[in-house]
């Protein structure tokens, strides 16, 4: 899952980037309103973690811009202002959730999973495709009774495909969800991860649509 974190405190920003990365998210970071606007206009993110107080303005401005162009990307507001009135204001401005500083890293991750799940119209915390189950919180896949260990990127590709099993995802889309801006992308990386997934879960699990991309194979 690719998310954008907007936070001006360098230490906290780094902590969120690394920490959410460990929880399986692909994290891009910006530190002010202007950069956040630009990033959101040019890219598609699965969710945004937005600090309320930024050096060049208010996080709610970013939120307003986003909702103004009918962008439904789920937004989790982070703030040091933790009064009830602030929470109400933030939620009414279009945020999906609100978290007061200081927070628990795992809670941020859980809330991000919750708002993206809801945003995608699902309620179940696990993704299913036939006998294949993906537990998003535990970052594990199960084939029948057998637990299969996956790397972060393998997991991310499987998750993307399983969220919309019938849809074909281009290699480019998958790459975007795997890598933040700062990360170098190896040219054949998606093919490598798909190959490994097939090796672990059985070849029919992912279907290659020649010239277009990948989608989930027929459910077993």
């Amino acid at each position, binding site marked *: 899952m690719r998310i954008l974190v907007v936070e001006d405190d360098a230490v906290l920003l780094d*902590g969120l980037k690394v*920490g959410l990365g460990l929880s399986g998210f692909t994290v891009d970071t910006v530190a002010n309103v202007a950069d956040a606007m630009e990033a959101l206009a040019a890219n598609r993110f699965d969710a945004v973690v937005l600090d309320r107080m930024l*050096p060049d303005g208010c996080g709610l401005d970013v939120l307003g811009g986003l909702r103004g162009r009918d962008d439904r990307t789920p937004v989790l507001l982070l703030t040091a202002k933790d009064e009830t009135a602030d929470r109400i204001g933030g939620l009414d401005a279009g945020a999906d959730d609100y978290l007061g500083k200081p927070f628990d890293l795992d809670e941020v991750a859980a809330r991000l999973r919750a708002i993206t799940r809801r945003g995608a119209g699902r309620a179940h915390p696990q993704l299913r495709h036939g006998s294949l189950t993906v537990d998003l919180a535990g970052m594990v896949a199960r084939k029948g009774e057998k637990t299969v260990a996956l790397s972060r990127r393998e997991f991310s590709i499987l998750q993307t495909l399983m969220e919309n099993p019938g849809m074909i995802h281009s290699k480019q889309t998958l790459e975007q969800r795997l890598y933040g801006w700062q990360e170098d992308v190896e040219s054949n990386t998606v093919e490598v991860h798909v190959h490994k997934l097939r090796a672990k879960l059985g070849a029919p699990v992912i279907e290659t649509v020649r010239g277009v991309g990948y989608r989930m194979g027929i459910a077993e």
Partner: protein
Amino acid sequence: MTSIRIRLIAILLMTTGAVWCCAVFWTYLSTQHQLERVLDARLTEAARMVSSLITDHHIEVAAAVDAVAASDARPEFAAAQTGYNRQLSCQIWSLQGQLISRSESAPAVSLAGHAKGYEDTVINGERWRVYAVVNPALGVRVLVGDSLDMRGKLVGDVIKGQLIPALAIIPVLAALIWFSVDRGLAPLSRVAGTLSGRSADALQPVEESGAPREVRPLLNSLNALFQRVSAAREREKTFIAYAAHELKTPLAGLKTQAQVALKSDDDAIRNAALRHISTSVDRTGRLVRQLIDMAAVDSADASRMAGKASIPDVLTDVRADLDSLRTARTVTIKAHVEVAREPVVYDRMLLALALKNILENAILYAPAGSDVAVSVRREGNELHIEVADPGPGMTPEEAEHLMGRFNRGRHDGKGTGLGLAIVDMAVRKLNGRLSLEKRAKNFVAEITLPLDHPGQIGLHRN
């Protein structure tokens, strides 16, 4: 005595009591005096009457004497108070000293030995007032006297008659005084009532228009105090909200990095997180210290500011405080101090905080290995303190923004955004100026402090 009511009542009771006592005493004296005169006149009249009665031979001596004694038995005294019977006693003596006749109540011995006029005598232990008149034609001396004890009793009875109504008035008077004081103090009680009915944080001014003139100065100062307290409380509230807010972000950063360190198996990630924690603790420590500095500068009261500070000494202390930061950033401080060591009138704490924060900023933003130049000089009646660093500096807009009390600066991982606000606030309280500008390759912060009216420093512009 702290109760005005009790005090007033006591004063009023004492003064009216004293006046009342004086009046009673005066009545007593004047009544006594008047009675003496009346009774003396009666003696004279009686003696003359006897003398004239016997002279004209209209009446026998004994009968005349009895007439005198009987004339005294006035109906009211005779009826009600038998004690007043036979007040007057009469004796008629021959000039040779023989008792010719006497009234029934008169003693057998001579009432007095004198020839004529008044005399006080003691007969058988009883005191008498006696009037004597000589009748030369008959060769007799007429003595008419009355008992002084009887007189005293009479005076006492008259006084008693006057005192009893006066005594009856005392409780009425006390009650009236009590009631009047109560009514008189009612406006004060109203003011006290409105004040005591307030909750602890009701600091709105007390309505003065309806209050009595005497209470207004008190209400004025009370309202001024309310104003100061509520301003201070407002500042405190803003400060606490700001401090809590400013501390939450670095705490969130620390917690997140700590969780990253705990979660990750990768040594590189763990070490990076720990390094972040270490620098963040330094920065948060600085933030806490600056918050305390800010509270100290903010609460520095202009009216209490006094004391002297030696500028070179203050600079030495500030440099010692910042030495570990300076070493860590490998910056050299080159100081050039052209002023004498003699202390000048400045608030030492404000001066030290201004210098420390301006120098700390310079050290934080100067590139590693570079020099920060500090110069202190006197120009006319002004003291100039310049701190120059070869760092990036800031635009005038940024500077303006940062000097605002609770404006947050860029979070570049170094400064807290509070330093400049503290410097600006301290310099203002010292009645000086702060200017920030780019000169050649340096960014220069200059503090200008007045020296001309050292006694007035800190008394204006807060």
